[in-house]
């Protein structure tokens, strides 16, 4: 019987930005809303500029499904140890993604597997 692989959902963060606990809670809530409580989230800390470059990490938090960014950044965005800027549905700036947009992105990426 073929093994069924689970999607690799990752949250990458940097300690200099305090948003990752909130982002992780919202990520888990989004997965639960999608009925995907079975998906484990790998939480990984990005520690230095070299790792940021190697990972293509453009800011904290970054959420990926099988390596695909839930909110693909501008290709010109340089890797950096910084806080990532998100926009909420009403246009306000936020250090974490819009919860509804996160659910929608996760649903799309998980269904594409």
């Amino acid at each position: 019987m073929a093994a069924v692989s689970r999607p690799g959902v990752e949250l990458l963060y940097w300690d200099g930005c305090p948003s990752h606990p909130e982002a992780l809670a919202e990520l888990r809530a989004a997965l639960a809303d999608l009925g995907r409580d079975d998906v484990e989230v790998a939480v990984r800390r990005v520690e230095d500029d070299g790792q940021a470059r190697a990972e293509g990490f453009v800011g904290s938090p970054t959420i990926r499904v099988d390596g695909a960014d839930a909110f693909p950044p501008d290709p010109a965005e340089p890797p950096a140890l910084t806080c990532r800027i998100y926009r909420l549905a009403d246009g306000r700036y936020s250090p974490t993604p819009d919860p509804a947009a996160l659910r929608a992105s996760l649903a799309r990426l998980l269904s594409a597997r």
Partner: protein
Amino acid sequence: MPLALDDPVPAFTLPDTDGQPVPLTGDDATATVVVFTCNHCPYALAWHDRINDVARDYADRGVRLLQVNPNDAARHPRDSLDAMRARVARGEFAGPYLHDESQGVARAYGAQTTPDVFVVGPDGRLAYRGAPDADHGDPTLGAEWLRDALDDVLAGRPVRRPETRPVGCSVKWRP
């Protein structure tokens, strides 16, 4: 030594985005607010309008509000002087936006985050330090901690909540 409440704050003069020198104190300032902020931090951006509303709302009471960008622009190009100028040109600031290129002022104040708010009383001493309000995500709070501190300073009474935890992106120090 980190700056403590009631300490005399360090005087400074920093250039604005036109290169004009701007001193900490004004001749007739009843209070001065120094906000360490920047262009690239979502916390600073989320609180930005609330902080600038304070500048507008208290200007006629002699309050001066200075916003200071201390970040290392070499590693964070969004915090460059050109990017600061662009935001000023778009009318995003209600007062001077100052460039702390050497990071000396941020170090002297012990700034930790963007934003990090310091209120200086008419006696030149630190009266409040911390966050603008309790939640970057709730615009209805209106920078109430900062407003409360200013109201207390202007009334000549002790600040009811003189210190809160600054919340935001870490100041981007030079390596």
